[in-house]
């Protein structure tokens, strides 16, 4: 499991280092899953019974699986999914408007060879 998380992170970072937005998008998707698995493992992986109380007993009397990481991951999945959807649309618009998906060529907000501020009054 740890190895898997490590591989996921490595792939995500490799993809993020690319110049092309489309690879960075894939990287973002992999990165989200890497973090989800990381939270899952940090909640300790055990083969215990589910933490559900049935009937009238107040405690189950034995170890139960940890339900919290699943709640955290669920939140993180929702957020990373909406993030990914937004980035996808934004990148598509960027490709349409700017005509490139190469980040080195995206210089519309910060044009190259900008004039220096005037040096005299």
């Amino acid at each position, binding site marked *: 499991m740890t190895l898997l998380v490590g591989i996921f992170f490595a792939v995500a970072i490799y993809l*993020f280092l690319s110049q092309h*937005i489309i690879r*960075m998008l894939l990287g*973002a998707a992999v*990165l*989200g899953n890497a*973090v989800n698995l*990381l*939270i899952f*493992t*940090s*909640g*300790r992986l055990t083969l215990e019974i589910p933490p559900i*109380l049935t*009937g*009238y007993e*107040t405690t189950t009397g034995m170890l139960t699986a940890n339900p*919290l*990481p699943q709640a*955290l991951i669920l*939140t*993180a999945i929702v*957020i*990373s999914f*909406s*993030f990914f959807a*937004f*980035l996808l649309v*934004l*990148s598509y*618009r*960027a490709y349409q*408007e*700017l005509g490139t998906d190469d*980040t080195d060529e*995206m*210089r*519309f*907000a*910060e044009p190259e060879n*900008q*004039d*220096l*501020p*005037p040096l005299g*009054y």
Partner: protein
Amino acid sequence: MASSEMTTIDLSAAMITQAPPLADWLVVAPLVLCMVLGAVLLMVRKDTQIQPVIAIPGLVALVLVDAALLAHVWMNGTVTMTMGRWLPPFGISFTVDILGALLTLTGGIAALAGGIFGAGDVNDSGRRYGFYPFLFLMMVGVSGAFLTGDIFNLYVWFEVLLISSFGLLILGSERGQIDGATKYAFLNLVATTLFLIATGYLYGIFGTLNMADIALKAQTMDDKAPMVTLVSMYLLAFGMKAAAFPANFWLPASYHTPRVVVSALFGGLLTKVGVYALIRVLLMLFPAERDLLGWVIALIAAATMVLGAMGALAQTDVRRMLGYLVISGIGVMLAGIALASPAGVAATVFYAVHSMIVMTALYLASGMAARASGSFSIAEPGGIYQSHVVLAGITLALFFAVSGLPPFSGFWPKALMVKASLDVGAWWLAAAILLTGFLTTIAVGRVWLLAYWRPAPAPPEETSMGGNGAAVTQPPALSPLLDFLPLVMLTALVVLIGVFPQKLIELSQIASEQLLNPAEYIKSVFPTGGLQ
């Protein structure tokens, strides 16, 4: 719930049995107000005339509620409210101390100024695409981040404000905006993911996400290696959010692209949330590990402020220069976190309040100046002093405030910070702060000289058109209510804080004591001493 009533177990051991007193509901009031208004405004988003009519009173109400919350916290100490009746650390707590309440109030004031200015600045299409709903949802995120007492909840609020800020950033869908937003979005995605990774590790180490619980357990944690890793990751994640030096490049790439009122809100609010999170996590939760990393933070602080000021010197566009000034201010705030002495932290809190107000006002002023002179560039003489003498005067006051000259609000926190650094012998940090002030003064002074003081050249049409020349040179009208009111309001605050700083200094000192000695914070969450 039905089954638990039939047994004889004592519910009060695990659940909250009594509703909190009425005044404590103030803790969630800013969030509820913003969320409801955001939803209402989303419903009426087609009706662009009615939006400001709902939004501006809503923002006034937000400021009042925030002020009431601050007064409540000031008089009664830290307040905690826990969601869903589960006792902390299982229920998600909202814990408000002076720092959180003070920053929420300042954020509310900045949002109010932005909301009023937006009524004149944002056009119908911008409103139809949801300027006001996004503004309110961003305030949900900002207020939530300042008020929450749970670290995973903090992550959620970060995402809420981030998603809304994306919406605000691309309002208008111009090429530069989409370009800037792409970089902003990806870099902030990496930063929040780092935050989430660190939170995952934190949960693995402590088994809890409640800040007060973490602060308690961190005191007894002996194993330094995982803790320092954890704190470094938080430092990087929040440093990216706050635009601290090695990770600051997204800010000047994007902050000058959106509408000027959006830049004002971003410059005033978003980076300060990153600083707030750094203060909370480094100073309150992990003070021992922060001490180990103190010199790293001090280096980052010095580099951020000096390079920010230098970047400001190299800009032709006023908005880009302001972006660098935001970064430079972040450096000064980080200096207080690096010092971690009560005086240094108090100066950081004070500076955060000052910076939120001044940066919002400066962006608004630059937008008005651009409307008056037709350009954001300082290479083209604007002649604003001739045409709009009041605006030029207000901007000069704000420029003095941002460079830290008395009698404006920037002077006191910088003076306190220099004194705090000299007290602990960090002379080079004090020198960096003074150098930053000097460079900032040059940068803003030049802007004022070139864009405001220098008379506008006579337009060539004037000679040929003869008598009609007066109509050509007539400056564009600035509405006294929608444009000047927010600016005058913020500038009045700047002067007021500058002339009567005692109350704010006192508040910052209380905030800093509460941070460095979190006993009151912990006691507020666990009245009986916690589940040990």
